[in-house]
């Protein structure tokens, strides 16, 4: 019990710490931050249920007013901004990523990579796009074009999530709750 609680808190803090790292600018002016790497890792390392709980805990602290969302954002305001779709999608993304690692009995590198792509991109993009479209008053195909800008950065992050998950599994096997 204590171990689960501290691990969930630790990964919530990891998402925050990654969001505080300076963002890189992709050509085209789309900022790429490490924050979504944290979301993917929550799922691939902690598994579906605990991974989603860690993300929810992180969002709760954002809502409480700490500036830990990438770009130093925070407070209740972000839930009324254009990113609301992504915020709602984050725990679902972690859940899906964890589910893939739990169910797909492939080598951890493969299932974690696949889980990160499915959760952090295939599931997250549509939910984020709906949020953008609703808040900005646009149609889905219009916002879809902007999502393409995130593609290269997110693919790199999925690969990193797989590599980091494997490294943790090798060095601290007890922590890989997704493979319990």
């Amino acid at each position: 019990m204590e171990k689960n609680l501290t691990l969930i808190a630790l990964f919530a803090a990891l998402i925050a710490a990654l969001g505080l790292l300076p963002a890189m600018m992709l050509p085209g002016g789309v900022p790429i931050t490490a924050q979504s790497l944290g979301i993917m890792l929550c799922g691939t390392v902690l598994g579906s249920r605990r991974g989603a709980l860690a993300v929810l805990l992180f969002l709760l602290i954002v809502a409480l007013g700490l500036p830990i969302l990438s770009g130093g954002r925070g407070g209740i305001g972000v839930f009324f901004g254009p990113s609301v779709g992504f915020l709602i999608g984050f725990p679902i993304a972690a859940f899906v990523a964890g589910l893939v690692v739990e169910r797909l009995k492939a080598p951890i590198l493969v299932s974690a990579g696949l889980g990160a792509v499915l959760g952090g991109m295939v599931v997250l993009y549509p939910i984020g796009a709906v949020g953008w479209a609703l808040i900005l008053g646009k149609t889905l195909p219009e916002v879809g074009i902007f999502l393409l800008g995130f593609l290269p950065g997110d693919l790199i992050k999925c690969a990193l999530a797989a590599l980091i998950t494997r490294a943790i599994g090798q060095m601290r096997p007890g922590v890989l709750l997704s493979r319990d």
Partner: protein
Amino acid sequence: MLTLTSPHDTWAHRLPAAPKMVALALWTVALFSLNTLPPLLAATTATGALILSGGLPFARTSALMLRPLWPFVLIVALWQGWLGDPTWGAAPILRLITAVAAANFVTMTTRLSDMITILTTLARPLASLGLPPRRLALALALVLRFIPVMLHQMQTIHTAFRARSHRRPGWRVMVPTLLAALDDADHVAEALRARGGTG
């Protein structure tokens, strides 16, 4: 850890947190039901006046907090202008800015401890689902403590890497940082168990 609560004391700091949250919820629902320019303009002006009533330094900080919105404003304006909208998407832009500014106002005038009190009150029904409010509060406290610890570890490992190599460490700090943090978490879990568990 720095919170977004404004150090410039305003009259709204002295209001209890719960009514502020309810008012914000109502205000936001109202905003999203407005679709034409004149009422939205009035709503934006009212919110601006509210923020200005906290004094100029307070208003300046609150304006800075809106900065991350400008790429979205630009995209919407250019897009709507290109589609031939004579107002350049002013209505959705005003709604967006006003909703975010109003929510930031509540965040900036409410202390973290008051927010946590509201949260534990709201979380009381969750106790029957196996999540006592005490455990939630403990988890929150743990995250707030882990964030600076993890940033510090990241910094240390980054410095150590730079001392040994002329390359930038990039993502290579991730695994050692996580391993160190995981070992810390182990000790914290042990300490919690020794003190009678998570309740």
